């Protein structure tokens, strides 16, 4: 199955890409997916504890199942708005 993976901010600096298409062998959880992704981008591993995930623009936790065609976003800590 195929999924799109989006990278933002500091995670984009690591992946050197806004978006990649990935081929997964089977349906899996976000946690399993992240482990697999770290094989391609080993530097991602140290962000494991602070990265959040969204599937199809919806925040999800790491037990969530990924399905064919999903858009998976890796969301580093957000900093919208302004200071204060």
């Amino acid at each position: 199955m195929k999924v799109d993976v989006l990278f933002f901010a500091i995670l984009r600096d690591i992946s050197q890409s806004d978006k990649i298409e990935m081929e997964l062998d089977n349906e899996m959880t976000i946690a399993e997916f992240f482990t697999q992704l770290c094989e391609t981008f080993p530097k991602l591993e140290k962000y494991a504890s602070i990265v959040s995930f969204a599937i199809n623009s919806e925040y999800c936790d790491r037990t969530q199942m990924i399905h064919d065609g999903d858009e998976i976003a890796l969301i580093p800590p957000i900093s919208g708005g302004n200071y204060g």
Partner: protein
Amino acid sequence: MVEITDKKIDVDALLKNTENPATGGVAIFIGRVRNHAHGKIVEKMEYFGYEKMAIFELEKIEAEARQKWPVREMAIVHRLGMQHIGDASVVIAVSCDHRADAFDACRFVIDTLKKTVPIWKKEYGPNGEEWVDGEIPQPE
């Protein structure tokens, strides 16, 4: 209404969106790029967003604010791209019949925005650039 834009935010035009003959109070928040942060000099700031999702999250915030307070009109605009000192990066305007509701709802929007809307900023200063620390969003 919610909007993500890469253009300068026109506060005056946005205030027009909050006009409603029944409203007595409009509370507005303007977040501007400032020249310092955590003791360091800031020269400019670049904003990036996951736009589709950011709009989706802003719409959720608007809906939640409208559930909690009797809001007549609401406008939330966040600007992306490179911005300079004094530029308005976010503007929130809320009009209600009563001012206490307008203040509470406006504050709720900016507080929640910082916790849930996927936008990131990079700070440029005399010693280079860096991603600004942020909040880890929690799935509901």
